[in-house]
């Protein structure tokens, strides 16, 4: 297992290098960053000065090697807007995102697992059809629209919940619902389909032949097996949540990395954008590694091969 983890980490380093390279050259494709930063009426001297400050003089490949060299030492450049190291800005925002992601994940799983199991056990029932309809709605509703709708209803019209910024418990409710709807829908459908498959299997029949209670058959014998495919989806969703809360964080003015990404784009803060994308890539790699380790824990067939 340890060897496997080390191997995966080495692969990860290689992948991050590739991502960094792509990010660097994509940035250059959009033209000279200095032009994007400067106001339109800037003079040619100002422009040359900006090019030098940003280290954009010299051929592209020299720039690339300097950038890589610095990146390897943990220096991802200075944010133009914040006038701070871009990596530092990222890490100052990360905890805020990390507050909302676990909350969303827990709520989503707590809702999705029982609902998925229930729909599988009562296939074709009203419960099943109702949760199926909810799932379709959840997957089809865009985040930004749902967020705005919730704010309009609960903050503007009813005045029950705060519409933006971080704060106490009530501040978490609307962003969690906005982020979580898609997750609940996805998890629920996956659990339903994997439960249906497992309920039909021979080992469930044998568990019943042993005379085990239905509770034990479902929650022990079925669930552990049904969770194996859920884990892969969990990894995908988790990566999506950490990096992709861009829309939700923007709608709710939540000062996390998602909103930071949005700001970096809007303010043309290209060193910050590069840093955010590279850090996101590293985060996703770690989440995937975590999923693979959890896999081995849940499924012994993987642990012993």
């Amino acid at each position: 297992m340890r060897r496997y983890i080390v191997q995966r980490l080495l692969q990860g380093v290689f992948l991050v290098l590739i991502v960094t390279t792509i990010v660097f050259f994509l940035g250059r494709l959009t033209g000279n960053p200095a032009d994007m930063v400067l106001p339109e009426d800037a003079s040619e001297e100002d422009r040359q000065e900006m090019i030098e400050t940003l280290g954009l003089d010299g051929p592209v490949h020299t720039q690339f090697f300097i950038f890589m060299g610095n990146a390897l030492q943990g220096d991802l450049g200075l944010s133009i807007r914040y006038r701070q190291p871009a990596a530092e800005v990222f890490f100052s925002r990360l905890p805020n995102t990390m507050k909302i992601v676990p909350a969303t994940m827990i709520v989503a799983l707590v809702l999705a697992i029982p609902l998925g199991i229930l729909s599988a056990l009562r296939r074709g029932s009203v419960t099943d059809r109702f949760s199926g309809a909810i799932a379709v709605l959840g997957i089809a509703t865009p985040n930004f629209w749902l967020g705005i709708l919730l704010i309009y209803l609960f903050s503007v019209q009813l005045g029950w919940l705060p519409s933006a910024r971080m704060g106490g418990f009530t501040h978490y409710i609307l962003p969690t619902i906005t982020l979580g709807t898609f997750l609940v829908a996805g998890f629920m459908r996956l659990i339903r389909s994997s439960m249906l498959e497992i309920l039909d299997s021979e080992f469930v029949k044998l568990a019943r032949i042993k005379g085990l209670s239905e509770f034990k058959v479902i929650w022990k014998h079925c669930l552990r097996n049904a969770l194996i495919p859920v884990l892969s989806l969990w990894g995908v969703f988790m990566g999506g949540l950490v990096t992709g809360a861009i829309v939700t964080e923007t709608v709710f003015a939540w000062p996390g990395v998602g909103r930071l990404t949005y700001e970096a784009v809007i303010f043309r803060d290209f060193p910050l954008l590069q840093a955010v994308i590279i850090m996101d890539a590293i985060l996703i790699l770690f989440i995937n590694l975590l999923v693979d380790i959890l896999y081995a824990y849940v499924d012994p067939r993987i642990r012993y091969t």
Partner: protein
Amino acid sequence: MTGETVLEVRDLHTHFFLRRGVVQAVDGVSFSLRRGEVLGLVGESGCGKSVTALSLLRLLPKDAARTVRGEVVLDGENLLDKSDREMRQIRGQKIAMILQDPQTSLNPVFTIGDQLQEAVARQNGAGRGSVMQRVVDVLRRVKLAAPEQRIRQYPHQLSGGMKQRVVGAIAISCEPQVMIADEPTTALDVTIQLQYLQLLKELQASTDMAMLFITHDFGVVAKMCDRVAVMYAGRIVESGPVREVFDNPAHPYTQALIASVPKMRQEVGLLHTIEGQPPALSDLPEGCRFAPRCEFAEARCQAAYPDTFHAGEEHSASCWRLADD
């Protein structure tokens, strides 16, 4: 060697209610099992053998299948009248079952010890230490090598034969009165089949339990069973002591089945085959269900299902030809 009747099945009807119609999978099956006896239930795929077995345990999918008529009497009580809770007490305690495919009948994510412990622990609550001891003991009884190590292993680390021994251990762990073995060797390697059959026979003989042995293999019947019941299209067409049925098959279907078994000491060109297909269980003919494939079929066979006639000592068959004797 055979004793009093343990299990009596009377006129069992189990039907599947599907959108496209009613499938009469088991349509009036009756048999009895005596202590210390092995009854073979033989027939081709889809004739209702497994559905019969699962009906006894009441383990068919509730939304589709229903036992509409009949009685399953164990210890003088009709199992079809029991509540779900009472039924759970009977499963694994009084009636155990071995499934066909050992590759899929154990849960891949739990250890052997854990899965066996669930069966063992249901028998009189005892301390955890002694439960594990009993798990090891029961694995020893099915002659699984190194049981202390096996209990910590997962199913994928065992071979098919070893897994089927574990399934056997689960079945005998509560010392059931009735054991149902549903084609327990079909999925095993030929070399292991014989060993496993011998093991089952030994376990059955030493505990004096009654066994319902489901198979499609007449060779296995000869090795394992005391009596045999031949099933065709949801009904038992012939039953009797194994030797008697083998030497003197009374029903044309049994005759044809026995003729299709290859014999070691005989030169044969082509094996005997039975022409045609069994009837669809959702659209059964009025008369004898074997008549469309039977070489002796007459008008009366199409008109009405034959009564059951005596064909020898404890030997009976449902065929109109026996009415003439």
